[in-house]
């Protein structure tokens, strides 16, 4: 989806009723000096974002967002279509750089390093902050080469033995090794949807990221494949930090420790997942998660 489509999506979404039109009161609250409810900052953050604004041309898509991504946590981002959660997610590894007309301001840091520093090479950044997309997108290569590709180009393996080890470790961590170990030379595209998505996760893990970004990773999967990916997310949290965008509130409640609610480009509320889903503070959050719109 290109810039123009994403930029106009929230207008269309409002017009068709797919996303609620904010009441006048809510719009005033959101547009002027809006302050996020809840704890945006955490101790020992892996990533910090301050005063982040994103523009698609004249369209102000993300408005002054402050948010920490804590180390070894899963943070879920929820909100109606067009609210900016995927746009924000893409800021974290500069994937918005690939969109014409997209401008990002503010401060975004990975372990105290400014990721929008002009001198920073984005290729290693995207290895450190990997991404898994909504539609599984394995390379048109063998299962082995899907995993090995990243370590090869980043020079992470000195020889074939080390590369084999990386491939096996990554597939084991993704819970896929036992299912594919006897057909590593077969094409990755020949796997089922759930297996392909886990292959993509293994591919991301293979380059030893610090943060994994997931943009609706289960929306194209059946319930069983979804459950496997969710369990995998829970295991991966031991070693990685994960930020996940999801339309499923039940999924956000199941997999995350913190949940951030976005609305019309604003970060409305962020807090512990249990608190957000049992007793949210902001009325907009309450209305969205209970399915009642003004």
């Amino acid at each position, binding site marked *: 989806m290109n810039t123009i489509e994403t930029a106009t999506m929230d207008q269309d979404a409002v017009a068709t009723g797919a996303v609620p039109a904010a009441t006048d009161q809510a719009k005033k609250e959101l547009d002027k000096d809006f302050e996020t409810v809840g704890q945006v900052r955490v101790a020992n953050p892996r990533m910090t974002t301050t005063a982040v604004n994103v523009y698609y041309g004249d369209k102000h898509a993300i408005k002054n967002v402050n948010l920490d991504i804590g180390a070894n946590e899963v943070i879920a981002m929820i909100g109606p279509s067009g609210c900016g959660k995927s746009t924000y997610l893409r800021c974290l590894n500069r994937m918005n750089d690939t969109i014409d007309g997209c401008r990002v301001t503010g401060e975004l840091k990975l372990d105290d390093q400014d990721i929008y520093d002009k001198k920073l090479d984005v290729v290693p950044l995207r290895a450190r902050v990997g991404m898994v997309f909504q539609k599984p997108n394995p390379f048109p290569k063998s299962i082995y080469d899907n995993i090995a590709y990243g370590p090869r180009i980043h020079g992470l393996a000195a020889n074939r033995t080390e590369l084999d080890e990386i491939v096996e470790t990554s597939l084991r961590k993704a819970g896929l090794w036992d299912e594919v170990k006897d057909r590593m030379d077969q094409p990755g595209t020949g796997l089922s949807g759930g297996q392909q998505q886990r292959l993509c996760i293994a591919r991301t893990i293979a380059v030893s990221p610090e943060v994994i970004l997931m943009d609706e990773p289960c929306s194209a999967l059946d319930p069983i494949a979804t459950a496997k990916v969710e369990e995998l997310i829970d295991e991966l949290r031991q070693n990685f930090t994960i930020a996940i965008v999801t339309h499923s509130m039940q999924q956000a409640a199941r997999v995350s420790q913190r949940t951030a609610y976005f609305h019309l480009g604003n970060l409305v509320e962020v807090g512990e997942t249990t608190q957000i889903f049992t*007793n949210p503070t902001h009325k907009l959050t*309450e209305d969205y*998660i*209970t*399915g009642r*719109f*003004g």
Partner: protein
Amino acid sequence: MDASDRRHIFSRFDGDLGGFRQLVLDMGQLACEQVQLGAEAVTYCDMQRARQVDDNYRAVRNLDMDLLEANAELLAIHQPVASDLRFMIMLSRTAYDLERINREATRLANLVEAHYADRISKVGCELFDDVMRMAETTGEMLQQALRAIADEQVQAGIEVVNSQEVVERLSQGALRRLATYIMQDPRNIPMVIDATIALKGLERVADHAVSIAKNLIYACSGKDVRHLSPLNLDPEFLRS
């Protein structure tokens, strides 16, 4: 935002939740009638009222089963969160309290059946006046708690909780008066025992009304006040 703006995006949810709430309120209304009937049965040694309480308990059981089914269906289909989830929890717990209240009413009726032959010649004895007073007070508490649920009014819930001390004072006064009946004439002992059992049963009804109110406060405010002293039920705390 007015009430019409609070419609769920799935219209069936509001209907299902409203239906569940109405079932609970119906059970509550039945509980109020049962308590009143049971107290009157004991006070006036009225077998007809006592049998009415027993007969009505069938309707209570049926409602209880309908509630369990509706509860499971709502949770399975709609997976409520936030205020809806708290509301569901509150209604489920209220159903339990109401079933217990109905059982207390049945125990009152059983007192009449057990001692009818002994008591019938002594109908009209003012010894049971405190039972009716207690029944009126606890009945009013229960009605107020049910109204608080219907209107989702935290303040009304707080008032029910604070009424508990009125019940305690009534109970203590009644027990002192009952003691004097024993001192006057030991032949009053069986009736005093029945009156004491009835008073204790009505105290438990009041406890259940308070429990309903505290669950309502939780549903509306998100704060668990079940183990807070009534003096600490500050509306500011509930809003924080």
